[in-house]
């Protein structure tokens, strides 16, 4: 019985009128946890009741604490009839279970009802007393931290990255239970909300257990999804990356290293092998300390070993770095092995074990998209797998074997694809489903990569690792010293002097003479030592250290395919037959659009395929960039097959001219001015063919189809033959993409390469559109046009809406498409608009151009370094922490300049103003929301816990609520409000890594009804402005306001 949950109901405000006669309400509150319920007194005749209740105490298992939400129901007392429910508040207790997150939940929560929406607010206080639990067989995993953020959270460092964790739980959907026939939709929806809340709690607990088993203490990149399978049930599944995180003490850069000594990270998982040498992927034979070669054993036996070099003992690094030395006490079980000594035969053996550690993992997958420097060694390309399944009822919810098996299958496939690419791991990994009737498409995708196994074995990801990530900033005028930086960091990274971090990840991981697919290789344009492909597709974010020329932009490929209506098996077969063609066309579109923008790499690639009854939608989004290390892309050539007709020739040449003009214009627009280089194509076995990094397959019911040949037959890659009607369509779609209005940039990744001086101005938004296709007999081409126009118009509307923020960049533009009904297409977008400083941007652009397109550090924001860097500047560990000193001095100078140009801290000035002008109690805490993992010009000082909320809203008076748009508009606003309220109650002032995972909208205009489900998630944090020298956590202030607010009303 290891926990006591305490809740106190303080007051309510703005309650709805429940008694027409008196225009007042007699409200009371039920507080429920598990099976225990408490009630407050009735506070008669008031819309602003002051219950000021006693502390309701629940003595519960910590298992329940994790699974169950605290349920607060506000009711109107009625003497003669049944009490009417006003609404509910579900409070997730989880943030209180971790010592590092929030300590108290206190604040105003919107009272939510599935029919009426938000109906007033209630002030609640919640605390948890946890007793120490020494039970080894416990079922709870209290204290494991969860992060939606897909990078190592700022203010933590990763001591160890354990790897992939996954779990799924299934249940019957209450909406499809027999009781649903007799109860009201409202009761049914409440049951669903409660159930899903419970299931996500359970899921999180189970994943936490797995993490504890692995020896970790946190899950990063936690991605939870719902599959509403209708009659066959409800599946809640989650994936994530288990890590051991150590908290960085803010403002004490070097102290963090001492701090890690005490971290109880060591566990069965970091086996004896951990402290040993680095396997080094280097062809440089000059290392004095090199030991006998240890080939990486990550490749499938079938493929020949890649040209990996002799490994270099990591002891060299260890002895050179204070960090590593200081970490030695951590090696609990490996205590028998001395650390600093040179390699002996035993060591070699252990190293090999370490090497294979990654391989032994069932799924070497990582949901992360941003990595500490040095983590990512090489990138192979995108791997993806899809599988079409027929849903049937889940017979035994406790043993969801079929669903597990399905995912297992897909993951195996991904793993084998990665192997074929010569990679031992998959990063930026994600899974998704699309369901239509009883057909379900499971999809998984990621980026095949070679990782530095050091990070998976041992806590030698020194403080610099997360610091570096933390502190992406534009060192203006930094370009000159870039070379020095390269040296410093490569020796620090210690794996490969030949591949500087700015290009190393582009080097091919696979064997150049036995390539898994046709590709054209050249020597890296950056270091000239290793081979690179000509195009690179990835699902991850652009690595901070990558060298990029110019700016990036959002690239989308859109596709619509009609399908005959069918049932069951036939339908599934029809869909799986269509999938490969869709993928192929999406890929071609992406490639063409990339060329048109004169870019050579895609990051954050996300391909979504959505099934409807009579059509399939495909939408691929990615951020295109020009990687300096990769060769310049060639243009696009149009050729006609029968060049006999003169007018036809003319037509072709006009088209060609338009394309060429667009390319020139885009180069200017995205500031792409690569240095002129001599083309040196090196021996590619199959030259002159389309080079594709996209590697995928489609399988249906585990019958794997043969791999697709993605090359355009034997044709040259960039020649589009317009005799082919498809190609005409391609060209049309190429040229119909409207350019962005001046002052706007867009990307679907965390940040835009080439923009660094963000201001604090940001605006997160969600936009949803539903189109009805009135004409049932549309051709594929007609549909494509409609779909493309829909997306383009949506973007145009967004630009117009956000024009007051110019110059600005729409970051993390995340499109979700769905076919909710026949003839309906739904597109939902969540993104953040961030404005940047034009003046400094111009200066930076100039510096960038002078510096021949090298900007490996420009991606870093100086503002975020702040006190840490200055303090660590004086420390001998500065080098070990991975921050080149030159960068630090620059950063500190940037801090001062940013202070100068930055206005008053927004939050503060706002609250000042509002207290002056709105003398109505404590002002509402401003809570910022962003889908990114950071807020510009600020520093995150604390993570308060994960926000994972699920809401259903229904209406039977659609017209009265302003139609479908009015209904959804207020629902989304309500969801935002509830997220903000929960964050504020935890003491936070922002949500990072926010995403709307699900937005299922159903309507029945004839019955005047509609219903919508929304699932959102994110990380609640406290941030402080960079300009604030003293970090004052808003926790204190918000605590005060809420208590004063409560006192004031009593």
């Amino acid at each position: 019985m290891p926990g006591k949950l305490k809740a106190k109901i303080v007051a309510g405000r703005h309650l709805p009128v429940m008694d027409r006669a008196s225009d007042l309400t007699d409200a009371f509150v039920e507080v429920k946890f598990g099976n225990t319920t408490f009630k407050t007194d009735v506070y008669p005749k008031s819309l602003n009741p002051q219950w000021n209740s006693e502390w309701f105490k629940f003595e519960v298992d910590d298992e329940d604490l994790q699974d169950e939400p605290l349920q607060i129901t506000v009711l109107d007392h009625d003497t003669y009839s049944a009490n009417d429910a006003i609404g509910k508040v579900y409070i997730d207790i989880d943030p209180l279970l971790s010592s590092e997150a929030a300590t108290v939940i206190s604040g105003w929560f919107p009272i939510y009802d599935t029919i009426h929406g938000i109906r007033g607010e209630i002030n609640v206080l919640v605390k948890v007393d946890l007793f120490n639990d020494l039970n080894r067989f416990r079922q709870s995993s209290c204290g494991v931290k969860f992060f939606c953020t897909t990078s190592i959270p700022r203010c933590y460092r990763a001591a160890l990255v354990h790897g992939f964790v996954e779990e799924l739980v299934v249940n019957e959907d209450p909406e499809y239970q027999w009781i649903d026939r007799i109860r009201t939709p409202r009761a049914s929806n409440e049951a669903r909300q409660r159930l899903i809340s419970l299931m996500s709690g359970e899921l999180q607990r189970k994943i936490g257990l797995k993490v504890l088993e692995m020896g970790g203490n946190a899950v990063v990149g936690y991605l939870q999804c719902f599959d509403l399978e209708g009659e066959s049930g409800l599946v809640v599944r989650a994936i994530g990356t288990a890590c051991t995180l150590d908290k960085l003490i803010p403002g004490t850069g070097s102290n963090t290293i001492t701090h890690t000594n005490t971290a109880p990270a060591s566990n069965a998982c970091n086996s004896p092998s951990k402290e040993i040498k680095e396997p080094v992927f280097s062809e440089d034979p000059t290392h004095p300390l090199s030991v006998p070669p240890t080939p990486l054993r990550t490749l499938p036996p079938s493929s020949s070993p890649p040209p990996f070099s002799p490994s270099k003992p990591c002891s060299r690094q260890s002895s050179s770095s204070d960090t590593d030395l200081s970490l030695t006490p951590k090696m609990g079980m490996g205590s028998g092995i001395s650390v600093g000594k040179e390699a002996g035969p035993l060591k070699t053996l252990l190293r090999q074990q370490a090497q294979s550690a990654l391989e032994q993992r069932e799924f070497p997958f990582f949901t992360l998209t941003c990595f500490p420097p040095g983590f990512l060694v090489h990138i192979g390309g995108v791997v993806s797998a899809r599988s079409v399944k027929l849903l049937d009822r889940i017979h035994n919810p406790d043993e969801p074997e079929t669903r597990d098996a399905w995912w297992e299958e897909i993951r195996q496939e991904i793993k084998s694809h990665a192997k074929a690419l010569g990679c031992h791991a998959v990063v930026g990994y994600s899974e998704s489903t699309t369901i239509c009737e009883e057909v379900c498409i499971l999809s998984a995708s990621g980026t095949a990569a070679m990782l530095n196994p050091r990070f998976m074995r041992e806590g030698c990801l020194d403080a610099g690792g997360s610091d570096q990530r933390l502190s992406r900033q534009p060192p203006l005028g930094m370009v000159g010293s870039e070379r020095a930086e390269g040296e410093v960091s490569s020796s620090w990274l210690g794996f490969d002097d030949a591949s500087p971090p700015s290009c190393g990840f582009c080097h091919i991981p696979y064997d150049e003479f036995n390539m898994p697919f046709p590709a054209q290789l050249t020597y890296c344009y950056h270091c000239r030592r290793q081979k690179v492909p000509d195009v690179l597709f990835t699902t991850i974010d652009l690595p901070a250290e990558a060298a990029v020329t110019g700016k990036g932009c959002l690239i989308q490929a859109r596709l619509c395919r009609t399908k005959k209506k069918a049932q069951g098996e036939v339908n599934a077969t029809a869909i799986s037959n269509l999938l490969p063609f869709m993928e192929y066309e999406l890929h071609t579109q992406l490639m063409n659009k990339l060329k048109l923008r004169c870019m050579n790499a895609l990051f954050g690639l996300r391909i979504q395929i959505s099934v409807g009854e009579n059509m399939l939608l495909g939408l691929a989004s990615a951020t295109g960039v020009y990687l300096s290390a990769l060769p310049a892309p060639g243009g696009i050539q149009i050729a006609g097959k029968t060049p006999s007709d003169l007018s036809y020739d003319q037509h072709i040449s006009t088209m060609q001219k338009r394309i060429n003009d667009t390319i020139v214009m885009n180069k200017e627009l995205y500031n792409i001015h690569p240095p002129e280089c001599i083309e040196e194509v090196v021996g590619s076995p199959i030259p002159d063919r389309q080079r594709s990094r996209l590697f995928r397959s489609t399988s249906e019911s585990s019958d794997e189809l043969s791999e697709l040949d993605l090359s355009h037959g034997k044709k040259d890659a960039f020649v589009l033959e317009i005799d082919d009607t498809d190609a005409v369509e391609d060209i049309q779609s190429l040229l119909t993409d409207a350019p962005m209005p001046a002052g706007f940039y867009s990307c679907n990744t965390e940040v835009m390469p080439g923009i660094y001086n963000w201001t604090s101005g940001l605006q997160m938004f969600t936009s949803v559109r539903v189109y009805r296709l009135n004409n049932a007999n549309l051709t594929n081409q007609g549909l494509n046009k409609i779909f493309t126009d829909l997306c383009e118009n949506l973007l145009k509307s967004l630009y117009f809406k956000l024009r007051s923020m110019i110059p600005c960049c729409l970051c993390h533009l995340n499109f979700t498409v769905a076919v909710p009904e026949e003839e309906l297409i739904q597109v939902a977008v969540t993104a953040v608009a961030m404005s940047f400083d034009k003046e400094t941007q111009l200066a930076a652009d100039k510096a960038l151009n002078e510096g021949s397109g090298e900007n490996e550090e420009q991606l870093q924001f100086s503002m975020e370094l702040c006190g840490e860097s200055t303090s660590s500047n004086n420390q001998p560990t500065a080098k070990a922490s991975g921050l080149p000193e030159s960068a630090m001095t620059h950063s500190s100078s940037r801090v001062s300049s940013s202070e100068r140009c930055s206005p008053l801290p927004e939050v503060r000035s706002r609250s000042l103003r509002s207290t002056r002008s709105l003398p109505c109690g404590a002002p509402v805490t401003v809570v910022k929301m962003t889908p990114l993992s950071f807020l510009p010009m600020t520093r995150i000082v604390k993570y308060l816990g994960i926000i994972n909320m699920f809401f259903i809203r229904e209406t039977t008076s659609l017209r009265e609520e302003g139609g479908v748009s009015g209904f959804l508009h207020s629902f989304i606003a309500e969801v935002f409000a509830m997220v903000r309220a929960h964050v504020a109650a935890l003491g936070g002032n922002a949500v990072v890594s926010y995403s709307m995972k699900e937005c299922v909208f159903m309507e029945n205009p004839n019955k005047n009804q509609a219903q919508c489900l929304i699932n959102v998630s994110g990380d609640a944090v406290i941030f402080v402005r960079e300009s604030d020298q003293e970090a004052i956590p808003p926790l204190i202030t918000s605590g005060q306001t809420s208590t004063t607010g409560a006192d004031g009303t009593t």
Partner: protein
Amino acid sequence: MSMELDVFVGNTTIMDMEVYQLWLDGLTVSDAVKVRMDEGALLECEANPEVLTSDTMDQFRTFQMCERLLHSPTKLGSQLLYQIPAQNQIILIERYYEFDSVFAREVLGKKLSKGTKKDLDDTSCKTGITLKSCRRQFDNFKRVFKVVEELKGPLVENIQRHFLLSDTLARDYAAIVFFANSRFETGKRKLQYLSFQDFAFCAGQLISYWTIGAMGAPTVPDSMMEDMDVDLEKEFLNELKDLKVLVNDKDMMDQHKILVCAALRGKIKVYKLMEVNFKNLSRALINLASKLTHTKDVRDLFIDLVEKFIEPCRYDRWTVAEITLFLTHYTNAAHCLGTFRHQMIWDRYMGVIKSCILQMYHE
């Protein structure tokens, strides 16, 4: 193909203040789009009519959803549904409660009842303000009236506290509430030339000098000051009867006239006419004062001023400067009358009357 649903929701609620004005003006979405196009909105951000329509619809919907909160502006600051920066909240409220003075002039002094609301379409036709906008303005008047009617304490401060309006706007509302409460006659043809601002000024004068709250309020305990700004002070109105002595006592009247004439001789062009008319003018003002105990006569205050004083002066082509001089000396001369003992009342009365007449004396 048709757009079935189209929403945009920002974490910080985006509000375009130009569109807000169009919404407040009661335009339909399509009219608003036309106006925006004429104002060159299409030149911004490469917009097209479709984008503009979508944006306008979305903005109108946002305002409509916020309207409920604007009805009790204090809620806007504490509600959680929309995150609106404080400075935007202030603008939202202020603009929502702003009104067209032409409209306010029409409604001024009328009972804020359902009946009046029904006649708003006439008002709309007459003023050229959309019916929707008329209704909003009328409802605002009524809402403010209802809230402050029940409250104790200074009127302007009450309005500011409950509706978070700027000082100027709160004063205008105070005037509207004051007129609606006392039901002053403003609709007569002869009063048509007066603007809302003229009346608002007069209301301000009456509130400042003739109500209970006006004189030495601190001496009266708060609890006693019921409706202190809304109603004229009864006691004062009764005391006004004492001023009759200025016309009833022949000697005093002559004396008064001599003093005024002496002061004005050679200073005003209409001196002759003034000399002839002095007794009539003086009688008009004093009679007005003595009648104010009757509610009916209070209501007719403005029409009486116009008929009995302003019109005769206008007939004789007095200039404003001449009226100013006359009223100043007329007021001051009474102080020199040895037998006149109601100096305090006299000043309190004449101060207001003088400034009202001066405000109202124009074409």
